[in-house]
């Protein structure tokens, strides 16, 4: 619903991303890579989902090749312990997946080149996403930061912001090795919060994807800050458009009002994201140590 209200063109990107996730869960890696390539061609950031979705597809392939006497089935669908020797080779899988992705991307770019007079569309489309020249207000963190940034420091902070965003993809995969779907959903959350041209549609799509991890929410020990985060989200989603109107149309508000609302919105989304990651990891740990259910834990 948030996507419909926001009316961003990322609806197409989200569609292809979800298609890719779905095909990965079914083990169809070619179609998954194809859909992900289309999503990346439209907006650049689904490229970050390449490791998690690849992991997800690999795991599903492993599962699908397990013998029938595996009884772990419905209770913990994400868990498996595959020690079979007929596990598909990682390198083989990797090359096929990445190769399919690159091939599709190259095909789409070549198609664009055929329709357009030159390769000048590449900097126009992709470099604008990377260098953020247009600073229209949006519910993200980047626009006001780069409005108020002085020119000599602009490239440095652009690099820092992009490095920060890129640095989440592989660690999520490594940590949530046993639950790649959680890695995918967390990565969706990271891009929804930290991408330069954030919009309500992507955040809405991610929040609805949280239902994929609903199994972790059943245990009451896993989520800690649900009520405050959801309340803040509701509060900012009502105030955000009001302050935007007040700044640009009524002329009685300041840019700071709207900026503060975007800060709080992103903070709420971050709390939900960290809560989700905590619940996923806690659930994983509790599955290994059933006596720890409901107990207080510490992290070292």
């Amino acid at each position: 619903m948030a996507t419909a209200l926001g009316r961003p063109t990322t609806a197409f990107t989200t569609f292809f991303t979800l298609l890719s996730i779905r095909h990965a869960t079914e083990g169809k890696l070619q179609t998954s890579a194809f859909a992900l390539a289309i999503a990346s061609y439209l907006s650049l950031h689904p490229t970050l989902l390449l490791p998690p979705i690849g992991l997800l597809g690999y795991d599903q392939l492993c599962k699908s090749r397990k013998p029938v006497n595996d009884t772990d089935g419905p209770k913990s669908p994400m868990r498996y312990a595959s020690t079979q020797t007929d596990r598909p080779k990682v390198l083989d899988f990797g090359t096929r997946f990445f190769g399919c992705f690159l091939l599709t991307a190259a095909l789409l770019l070549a198609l664009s080149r055929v329709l357009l007079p030159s390769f000048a569309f590449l900097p126009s489309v992709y470099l604008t996403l990377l260098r953020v020249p247009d600073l229209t207000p949006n519910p993200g963190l980047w626009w006001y930061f780069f409005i108020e940034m002085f020119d000599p420091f602009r490239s440095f902070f652009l690099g820092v912001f992009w490095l920060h965003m890129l640095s989440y993809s592989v660690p999520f995969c490594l940590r949530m090795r046993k639950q790649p779907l959680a890695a995918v959903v967390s990565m969706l959350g990271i891009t929804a919060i930290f991408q330069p041209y954030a919009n309500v549609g992507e955040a809405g799509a991610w929040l609805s994807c949280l239902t994929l991890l609903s199994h972790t929410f059943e245990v009451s020990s896993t989520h800690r800050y649900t009520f405050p985060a959801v309340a803040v989200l509701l509060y900012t989603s009502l105030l955000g458009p009001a302050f935007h109107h007040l700044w640009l149309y009524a002329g009685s508000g300041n840019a700071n009002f709207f900026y503060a609302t975007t800060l709080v919105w992103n903070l709420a989304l971050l709390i939900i994201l960290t809560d989700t990651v905590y619940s996923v990891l806690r659930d994983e740990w509790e599955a290994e140590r059933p006596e720890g259910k409901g107990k207080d834990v510490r992290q070292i």
Partner: protein
Amino acid sequence: MHLSTLLSLPASLALLTLATVYASPHSYTEHLHLLPLPQSHLHAHFNFTATTPLSAYESSHFRYFPRSLAQILQHTRTKELHLRFTTGRWDDESWGARPLDGTREGGTGVELWAWVDGGGSKTVPEERWSELVNSLSGLFCASLNFIDSTKTVRPVRLFEPEGDHGSEKGGLQLLHGMLPHEVVCTENLTPFLKLLPCKGKAGISTLLDGHKLFDATWQSMAIDVRPVCGAADGGECVLEIQQSVSMALSIPRSMRDRHDPIPRPAKIEDVQCDESKPWNGHDTCFPNAVTDEPAWTLSKVFGHAAKGACDLERNDQAFDVTLEVPSDRPVNATGASELTFPSTTRRHYRLSASSSFDLSLPACPSPVNPMALFTPPLYATRQIAGHGQERGSMHTTLRNPHAHPLTLVYMESLPWYLRPYMHTLRLSNGKQEKLYYTPALDRERGTHLELVLTIPAQSTTTLTYDFEKAVLRYTEYPPDANRGFDVAPAVVRVLSEHGGFGGSYVRTTSLLLSLPTPDFSMPYNVIILTSTVIALGFGSLFNLLTRSFVLAEEVPPSPLAGIIRRARDAVKGLLGKKTGGDEKESKAADAQAGETAEAPSLAKERTDGKANGIANGHADLRERKARVVT
């Protein structure tokens, strides 16, 4: 070389006895045209024309042509130059057609267009243009150097070269730039006067004073350089520079004494009341519009009389000042000789070098047959419509008052932060023949929009399109950011019916565009707040991802937890001593109850948070032991 040129001059002059002025190789003329306008205004048009033969120009021998400008033109290979400094607004409705059909005026601020020798490449004319604007900026003390690629366009049909370029015409490229925000003032007038041979010290140029010129309702200073090849002088081309100052000043305002410029109301006896108004009475008066021609004197209007004359290379038929008034208006001229011509409305005067010239006209009731003013070819106005600082729309009204349809070229050069949506371009009641459109690139070039339109007779055409406003970076806002940004005026060229050369020009006013502004006091705050949010997220996720879970009782207690527990116990002990007996009883009860009594208090501590994890752990351990034992 020079001697031969000097000797050749009188020889050529002897040959051309009755030649018209512009074909003479080295020549200089100046002329002032005065025309009273309705509503107590006066239009004064100063024209200073100097020529130099192209051969002398190329060999750097200058006589009346200003050397400083010539060197700039030679260095940048500019073949034709038109530079305008304009302030104010010409009132079409009251004053009729613009002087010289709008060919010697520009849009508000500074307007510059030039034909530059392209050398066949795309980048060379832009480099030469950049050198040209920077050099002119230094010469005229105007910030012309701000005309960079974001403000330069290449019009297609709007301008035609006025000079005779011959075979070079194909290699020339036209570049046009406008600065609507430029404030034109005395520091632009002084270099303008310095380009004249007499340097503003003799002749009609003495009348040009910054105080009066920039106080006018409308003024335009123009410099036009073009090559002219007349057929009469045997193929010798000359380079002509025309400097003109055109002004429409309000006579009562200009006649105010400079040392006492405060406007004071007229005495009530001198004011004529409109008797037809219902509230007219002895103490309420609605003044009648003044239709009488006011009395004015040239020295009062311009501040001082015209001193001397700048007569170089003139023939006896030349005249310096023309006054265009009805023949029955009495005029008193001193210090000049009047030349009689058959025309009844024009009076011509020739200044003499030894005396100062003054004109005085007494007041006169509104004339029976007033001077016919020419109807302008087109009335053009333009506004920004819409509300809010996110989007808006441009609205242009073009009115054709004549009985025949008009073909016109309408050109707009928009800044890049005004993003028009071309699919919303609508033209009502007119026909669009052609559209030339160059889209904008952020921070590189602006939008160039040129339309060829046909407007039917005696009708009004409306041109509208929507646009979106961009948010700029902190350093791109001017110091007075909330004033807004100026959008350059639209230039309209009314094509003459026979097609081809010429045409009259009408310009709209410039517009003020208000863009959304950030809070300029907050760069540091924004950086730290955003960084805080990002760091919170990164820190939490990093902790979650890199740390593993353990049960609270499996780890040794952290020293911090022990310190906090001891501090809490000490505080509780202090509070217990104050209460006295209660504490002893509770202690006894505790000792009796043993483990089960400890549990509630420990359970209370458990709710204090993780720091007491060890207490919780101990309680759990004891519970478990109890269960195991039982």
